[in-house]
């Protein structure tokens, strides 16, 4: 109890009303902050370069980061439950090279793609089962998943495999254009994943259970919610998304490569956190993760426009991540004090 808290209830001021608003919508604040940063970045870049907010550039922004969007959506499910999945980048590399290998061996895309998606989901299932049924920390379980997927990627092939399959290449080469805007099937896939993610988290029983688990797992269990099933399913969905990201990346780069996505798990975590999802779970939005990826992509594009050293991307993302974590920390501390 601090002094100003003792006095505050006595006089309902503007400050009070602001605090009430903040406490009711605290979960939205980090996402709003991310949107504000995105807009500021876009406006700043527009002023600096003149042609930044061009349809062509913004379309490219979406398409270049399609795989990261899909990863971030999958990861959002897991982080909302209060867990973490470090394996997403490696799983993406594994399913990507698996797909390229299967296609090179003459399998049709209609068989190869479900196999790679299943491969991603299987690794997610393994992590989920370790976390839920063997009380392994999510960090360690997904670490095992990371090692497994990265190693398996190299087991499939030690070098990159070119993709010749027309169906997979179609995903990237087809362009639907409206004026100067364009969209490829990979971009549509990413947006579809976001839409499904938003629907599942906001309007389904499964989604509400995820939030409940992240808020307080014990309470969720006592309420009779299917905690075990939901948590495992969150990891499976994350693995499935990583598998799909592998397909998108393979289509995007036209080849499978076992070293793809080293460190991408961290980019994805950063995007989710910058998008306003609390790493303690229970608070955040799938749409926020999309914003987080776009912030990441804009920073990357600005640095490319500027001609600066690409290593600045990682430093700035690190700094932004820190900023958001501190903001989150303040929000959590405030809401805890209020209780």
């Amino acid at each position, binding site marked *: 109890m601090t002094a100003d808290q003792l006095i505050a209830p006595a006089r309902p001021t503007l400050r009070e009303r602001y605090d009430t608003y903040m406490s009711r919508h605290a979960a939205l604040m980090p996402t709003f902050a991310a949107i504000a940063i995105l807009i500021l970045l876009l406006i700043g870049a527009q002023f600096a370069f003149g042609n930044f907010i061009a349809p062509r550039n913004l379309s490219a922004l979406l398409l270049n980061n399609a795989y990261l969007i899909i990863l971030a959506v999958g990861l959002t499910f897991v982080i909302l439950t209060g867990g973490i999945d470090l394996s997403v980048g490696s799983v993406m590399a594994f399913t990507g090279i698996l797909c390229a290998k299967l296609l090179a061996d003459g399998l049709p895309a209609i068989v190869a793609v479900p196999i790679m998606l299943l491969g991603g989901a299987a690794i997610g299932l*393994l992590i989920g089962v370790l976390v839920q049924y063997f009380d392994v920390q999510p*960090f360690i379980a997904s670490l095992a998943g990371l090692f*497994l997927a990265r190693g398996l990627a190299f087991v499939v092939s*030690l070098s990159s495999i070119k993709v010749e399959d027309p169906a997979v290449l179609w995903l990237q080469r087809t362009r639907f254009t409206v004026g100067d805007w364009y969209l490829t099937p990979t971009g549509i896939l990413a947006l579809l994943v976001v839409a499904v993610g938003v629907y599942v988290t906001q309007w389904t029983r499964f989604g509400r259970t995820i939030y409940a688990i992240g808020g307080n797992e014990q309470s969720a269990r006592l309420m009779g919610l299917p905690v075990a099933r939901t948590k495992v399913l969150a990891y499976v969905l994350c693995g499935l998304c990583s598998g799909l990201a592998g397909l998108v990346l393979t289509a995007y780069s036209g080849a499978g490569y076992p070293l793809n996505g080293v460190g991408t798990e961290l980019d994805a975590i950063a995007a989710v956190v910058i998008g306003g999802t609390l790493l303690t779970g229970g608070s955040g939005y799938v749409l926020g993760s999309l914003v987080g990826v776009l912030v990441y992509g804009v920073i990357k594009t600005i640095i490319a426009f500027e001609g600066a050293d690409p290593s600045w991307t990682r430093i700035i993302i690190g700094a932004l991540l820190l900023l958001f974590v501190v903001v989150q920390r303040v929000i959590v501390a405030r809401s805890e004090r209020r209780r």
Partner: protein
Amino acid sequence: MKKLLTHRLVWPIAALITLIVINTIARPQFISVTVRDGQLYGPLIDILRNSAPLMLVALGMTIVIATRGIDLSVGAIMAVSGAVALTVIDASGSPGSLGTVFVALLVALLVSLVLGSWNGLLVSVLGIQPIIATLVLMLAGRGIALLITDGFITTVTSAPYKFIATGYLIGLPFALFISAAAVAVIAVIERRTALGMLTEAVGINPAASRLAGVRARGIIFGAYAASGLLAGMAGILYSSNIMAADANATGQYIELYAILAVVLGGTSLMGGKFTIAGTVVGVFTIQTLESTILFLGVPSAQAPVFFAVVVIVVVLVQSPRLHAFVRGLFARRRSSSDAAPPPPTAPKPTDAPQTPAPAEVAS
């Protein structure tokens, strides 16, 4: 005998010995040590020498994990430290002189100490989750290292610097002395003073230990600072071995291997209890396993599959649930009718730190 079997180093040491025995059966020259020009050579010596960077990092990780934290930034700190040291040597007029190397080491260690303290500040003062606080530096650190080396792989030639990783002293690799000294210093500080106990107290319950008068903040801060410094030393060893500062490859995944070493050694990730001897055994186990995998003709890129299997087996063996399940099986077999099976979550005494008390989780 029973006491010996329940000692917590039994399983880690058993695993290491099993590995060495399998290796020796597969190729008898594995345990052979030859003397050439008064210097010892052999696969075991190589394992000892190559394990030095991982040993340093794992030592720091052990202390951090004892405070119930985790340090993901060690690989990045290694990259920065190596980049700083080699850049200093590269920029100086006489890369071969002892003075230059000394200055380079000093600057590199200072920088890594600062980076470690930065982590400590975020965790202990700002109260940010350790995973995230160190994730920031893990992301940004390699960027910083790339900036220091201008995005190139800086290569230098400096005999005294090369000596650090590849030199020999009284017949043994010099790197071995560094890691042995680090183990000794950490063991003395943590085990011969009250610091180790205080660290464990902080790891078990930071709030309670603070109320009991333990300077929890200072201890957590110190743990990260030490981890940073040790990672800096590892970075120097690594860069000295290849005589190049490669910001991307230095310490790649070493944080994961270090965590694995700590867990293999029997330290619980829940914090509160740690064993330095266990970590040493864990590091040797990983290094032996790596050498085994290479010997089997597996491309080193595929090695992570084996490590994944090891991680999964180790965490399953540690899992209280599995223990309860196995005990339940035995109890049922022994007396199927009269005795009720033990409660599913009842932990063995040795597993106590691995099962968090509900009160701690809720706080």
